[in-house]
């Protein structure tokens, strides 16, 4: 069994984070975007936990737990927002929500 090294944990985190970023930028579905954000949060959590282990301090793990708690509550809000938005436009396509767009009328 290959021993998981410090650099591999960090690499995993960077990979997850990049996937999250790419999802955020390139996808249209609001659910996918939400999942990308969660992915990025978890990538950060991995870094916290890794560094906690590496430095032998519990601080990082505590923060990781806190992030998860906040992410949970955020999930509740986010999902209810998505429901509300769906009711408004009957769509989960992010491009349909363009009320604040600059109209070239000036």
């Amino acid at each position, binding site marked *: 069994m290959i021993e998981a090294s410090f650099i591999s944990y960090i690499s995993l985190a960077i990979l997850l984070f990049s996937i999250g970023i790419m999802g955020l*930028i*390139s996808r249209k579905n609001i659910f996918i*975007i939400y999942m990308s954000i969660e992915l990025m949060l978890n990538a950060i959590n991995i870094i916290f936990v890794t560094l906690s282990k590496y430095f032998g301090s519990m601080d990082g793990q505590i923060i990781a737990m806190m992030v998860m708690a906040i992410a949970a509550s955020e999930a509740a809000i986010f999902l209810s927002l998505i429901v509300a938005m769906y009711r408004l436009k009957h769509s989960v396509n992010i491009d349909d929500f363009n*009320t604040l*767009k*600059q109209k070239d009328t*000036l």
Partner: protein
Amino acid sequence: MNSSLLAWIILIPFISSFVLGALYLYSISIKKINDTIFTFLAILAPITSFLIGVAFFLSLKNGATDYMYEPYTWLGVNGYIISMGFLGDKLSIFMVLFVTFIGSTIHVYAAGYMKGDEGYGKFFSYFNLFMASMLLLVLANSPIIMFIGWEGVGLCSYLLIGFYFTEPLNVVAGNKAFIVNRVGDLGFIIGLVIMFFYVGKLGFDYYALEDYISLVPTSILTIIGIALFVGAMGKSAQIPLYVWLPDAMAGPTPVSALIHAATMVTAGVYMVARFHFLYDLIPHVGEFMAYIGAFSALFAAIIAMRQTDIKKILAYSTISQLGYMFIAVGLGAYSTGLFHVFTHAFFKALLFMGAGAVIIAVGHEQNIFKMGGLRKKLPLVYSVMLIATLAISGIPPFSGFFSKDEILLKAYRHHEYLIYGIGLFTAALTAYYMFRLFFVTFHGKNYKQKEMHYLSWSMKAPLLVLAFGATVAGFVGLPEVFSQTNLIDEWLKAYSGGALHVEHTTEIMFMGISVVVGLAGIVVAYVKYFKYDFNKEIQESGIVYNKFYIDEVYHFIFVRGIQKLSRFISVDVDDGVIDKAVMSLCGGFINMGRRIGRMQCANTRVYAFFMLLGISSFSLYLILKLG
């Protein structure tokens, strides 16, 4: 007597003006108000002021000291205080009496003259505002408060000249009056500022000024005196600032009678008398004033000889008579000048009101050569006009004789023979042009129209009152030869400039000369115009009729240049430079906004990308910096 009543003399017309204005606005916009209400309110105010004035007069007559009332601080800067103060001394109460008396009669007259006019309420609102301003000017206890009134009467004059503002010519006349007055006012302000600079720290009411004015060096006093006189020139229509007064006749006739003949134009004379302590110290400026007065008198009289508009003739005669007043005050005989102000107010108001009655009767015609033969049709107007014309021509026992004769006598006694000569000659011209007007209007046979417009009693009654005044007003200032007490000199003792004793024979001789000269003028007018009966209308022309082209010269020298300058500033500088700069700056902002606004594309992924870009570059910066 309570000195706070002084303020009510001013406040009553002011409040009345305000109420009338509000009622007028109500009347034109919501519900028509009966003219009777306006009339009642309007006439009540000057009469009440007059009665209060009489009370003060009686109290001062019984030996009361000057009344001083300072209700509140008008201006307090850094410990220096100018209070809104009123001074009721013999001079100001004298002015109040005749201003409110003449004002009351003209208000009554105007009620008839303006009957049925659309702007009836507005007219009386302005009229009462004028009364309030004039009384403030007279009753002020410091030059600064006086200046408020000074400007107020100018404003009312402007408003009333342009009363029929739908006619562009009237508006031009109003503007002209206002602008020429501003020129004079500038002189007045300069005088006040210099005076303030030198003695203002010691207090700026008349009492303080009188005490401390001698601290100012004579050369500075000369400048102050001339600057203040420039103000008087503007307000009292003397050379070279007289040009506005003839044009001011565009206003309704009661306005001409009250403002441009009897009261406002005498403000300059009053001001000089008020500053007598200043002018006593600089007799050379006084002499200059007297010469300006004499030349104005002569010049205006010459122009008046060839005019055809009845009101313009009277306007020039006003300038001429004001010239006489300045001769008197210039030579230090302030009480004599004020005596002429007093008598002139009666007969000139009467002349204007008579002229107004004639104009109404013949259906708004002002050219005297289109009138004629009105003697039989308007017997009352005829007789009062005869009294007024005799008074202004200096025929005894009518009022003008005494005051004019006294001025000429004073000029002679001060060894100003040139002024005396000019004054005498002008007296002859005055008699001539006034009787020319009189004969042509009332005795000529040129009038075609048979129908006369009806003159109401509210127009006739004031004529009678003033005719009585014009007849007897002279008796308050009888010369020494007839009476030991000259009431005017007695009352205004502080302003009489010292009594000049004259031999009785000399005095009688001078009177004789004046009367002969006046009669000579009348005879010439009689010969030329009594049986005036031209089949074709007379057309005056020539340099005199065209007023020596002074208006054209002024237009050429001043007005054109200023118009060009204004055009340059408004077109080239304002539009070309300032507007352009501001507008291009605006344009820049708008363009920038449009570009930046395009970033709000409503594409969430783009936003996220920008966010990422921002965070990345910031992180990169931190890493490079800290790393």
